[in-house]
């Protein structure tokens, strides 16, 4: 009896210890978050965590529940159940809100207000004093070549310009957590690159960035870790590399110097061929060495041999189409 108790308490100790360890490096942890609307489950039992200083991708098709999720993380909505840990403590929207910078997808500014005044106003609402805000705005305006805009009105700005301003306003108060919902929409490639570099810079200086988008090529390029949600549920969670490994289909690309006379091997199927380039799928029970060996034995030279990993876009589309069958219509429980 005594022994069992001892054992149990020992185990409990270890668990707590591990828990603390994980908290140390996580800026945000979501545990079983739920938010139900009258007609649907917008967010249905989602849990994940985000490493301090990482660039995190939150992906999902339209209506997947991303915005609802982000609104809970920014304290705009309260979850129906589940809890949020922010910076090591239970999330307290009233006080933690100043540590978060949120650029929503539906964003805008006061059209009739001058740009300088507007930035000053929004920065002060994030808890900066007037003089602090002034200094930071000047710094950012100079950095992104917006100095001459101070007395312009927002209605006189182009869409790209107001996007840039919106970005500055989001990061001005040096938030620990920056949430960007489709940050590149409306930006030309030059400005998109400029903003991308700023995002890397902010992340290197210790800010964590949540990046929400449907543009998979950007995610692949920028994000360390992604979570894919669909129909209010999390369907994928991991680093970009791990996910690609997880979803790889054992496909390899081969480039040959010529076209071999015979291409029949028990080790692979040819999936695609374009002149001297072939895409092969390795059969069950074989590996890449078997395939390469086969080609080496052919009379034509192998110019290149590489693994083809699925793009995030393919994984995304496959997964989303796969989950379409499940419905998330809200079923009230009748007791």
């Amino acid at each position: 009896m005594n022994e069992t108790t001892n054992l149990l308490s020992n185990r409990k100790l270890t668990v707590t210890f591990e828990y603390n360890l994980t908290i140390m490096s996580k800026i945000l942890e979501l545990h079983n978050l739920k938010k139900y609307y009258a007609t649907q489950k917008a967010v249905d039992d989602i849990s994940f965590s985000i490493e301090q200083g990482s660039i995190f991708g939150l992906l999902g098709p339209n209506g997947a529940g991303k915005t609802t999720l982000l609104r809970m993380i920014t304290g705009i909505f309260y979850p129906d159940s589940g809890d949020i840990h922010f910076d090591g403590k239970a999330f307290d929207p009233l006080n933690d809100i100043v540590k978060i910078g949120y650029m929503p997808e539906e964003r805008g500014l006061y059209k009739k207000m001058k740009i300088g005044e507007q930035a000053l106003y929004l920065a002060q609402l994030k808890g900066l004093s007037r003089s602090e805000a002034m200094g930071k705005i000047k710094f950012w305006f100079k950095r992104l070549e917006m100095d001459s805009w101070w007395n312009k009105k927002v209605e006189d700005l182009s869409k790209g310009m107001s996007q840039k301003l919106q970005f500055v306003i989001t990061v001005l108060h040096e938030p620990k957590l920056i949430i960007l919902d489709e940050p590149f929409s409306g930006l030309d490639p030059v400005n998109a690159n400029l903003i991308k570099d700023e995002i890397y810079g902010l992340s290197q200086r210790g800010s964590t960035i949540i990046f929400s988008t449907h543009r998979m090529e950007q995610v692949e390029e920028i994000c360390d870790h992604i979570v894919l949600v669909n129909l209010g549920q999390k369907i994928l969670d991991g680093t970009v590399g791990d996910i690609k490994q997880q979803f790889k289909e054992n496909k390899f690309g081969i480039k040959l110097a010529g076209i071999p006379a015979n291409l029949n091997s028990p080790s692979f199927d040819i999936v695609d061929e374009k002149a001297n380039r072939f895409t092969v799928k390795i059969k069950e029970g074989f590996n890449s060495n078997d395939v390469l060996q086969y080609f080496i034995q052919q009379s034509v030279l192998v110019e290149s041999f590489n693994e083809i990993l699925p793009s995030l876009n393919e994984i995304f589309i496959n997964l989303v189409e796969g989950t379409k069958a499940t419905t998330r219509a809200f079923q009230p429980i009748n007791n």
Partner: protein
Amino acid sequence: MNKTLLIIQREYLTRVKNKRFVLTTILMPLLIVVLIAGTTFLSIKGKDEHKIAVVDANNFFKDNLKSGKNIQFEFPQGVDTSNYLYKGFTDIILIPKFEGTEKTNYIIRSKKSLSIITESEISDKINAAIEDNMLQNAGIKKAQLDSIHKQSQFAELKAVEENGKGTQESNSALAYGIGFGSGMLIYITMFIYGAMVMRGVMEEKTNRIAEVMVSSVKPFQLMMGKIVGIGAVGLTQFLMWVILIIGLSTAAQAFIPHDVMQQVSSLQQANGQLPGAGAGMVKASDAAQQIYKVQHTISTANWPAIIGCFIFYFLGGYLFYAALFAAVGSVVNEDPQDAQSLMLPITMPIIFSFIIMSNAVQDPNTPMAVWASIIPFSSPMVMMARVAYGIPGTVPYWQLALSMVSLIGGFLLTTWVSGKIYRTGILMYGKKVNWKEMRKWVMRRS
């Protein structure tokens, strides 16, 4: 700085700095002054003049019918209905022979139709002439009659209101003016500033800044900041108007000759020594009498109470309705027609209150007026109409207290309800919302 204060500051400054605000604030009192002066001028100068030929079968009107300022009676020979115009007359009156005391019709023929004022003036003069003729027939000499007519009015009605402590002069015309004026002002401002709140909220929603804002402040802070900021704009405008009106009327006094002003002040002293005795003892010109009368009438009102109540009911009524306007603004999408239909349940009680107010200002103690001045939907306007008649004479203290408490409770309730609608509404795009759905949002727990 406190976030709500920051929001109030922005809402206030962007509107007060606006050119349109400065213009309306300055032009409005000027416009009113010009309007009043203009109508007065026109009513004095613009009267049409009548030269009337009288064809009388009785032969006594010639002595008794008195011409007025704009109406001149003449008794020419050889004029009839066909040729009066050629002889320089505008109208002709044909009076048949009176038989006994029976009512008799007489006829006036004119080229232009007569105004109601001219018509009644002519009728009064003809009747007065007949009366004079009867008095003369009864034996009163014409000289005596004339001397009696010279003195116009001997008695003037002075209503005195009795309250516990003593008596107080009251003036129902003034009370009517103040009651209607302040009720009207509250009515107009409720619409102007309520709509301003609604447009402000709609702007935040359609500009898509609402979500940026609520990631920094609570929706309730955003809503209250806007309501309070715009309320302060309203108060500023009133204050400017009061200053301008006082300034303008002081400036107008400078144009009154010095000796007239001296007479006015001696009238004031005389009346101060003998309360209620009137100003008849002091010799003064007509102009001085007039100025004194206006000043004295205005001084009979209980201004501190009226101004205090006005500020309270303006703010209370504004807060009560502004929150509702904010809620409507928050659920409207780009389509302004949605706003129209959703506004109806808010504008109807305001319009009803105005109708009740315009009755209450004539009869401040009907049960309808009393209850409407207590219920917060209508109390801001209706109570102002009644307060002008005097506290506690017309409005007992308990009614005033009950009305004020229920208005405070009322706006706390509308603000709470609207806060709930607003919170959901400003983040809702593209969906058309009806009152039923809004009721659901209110019932939902946070």
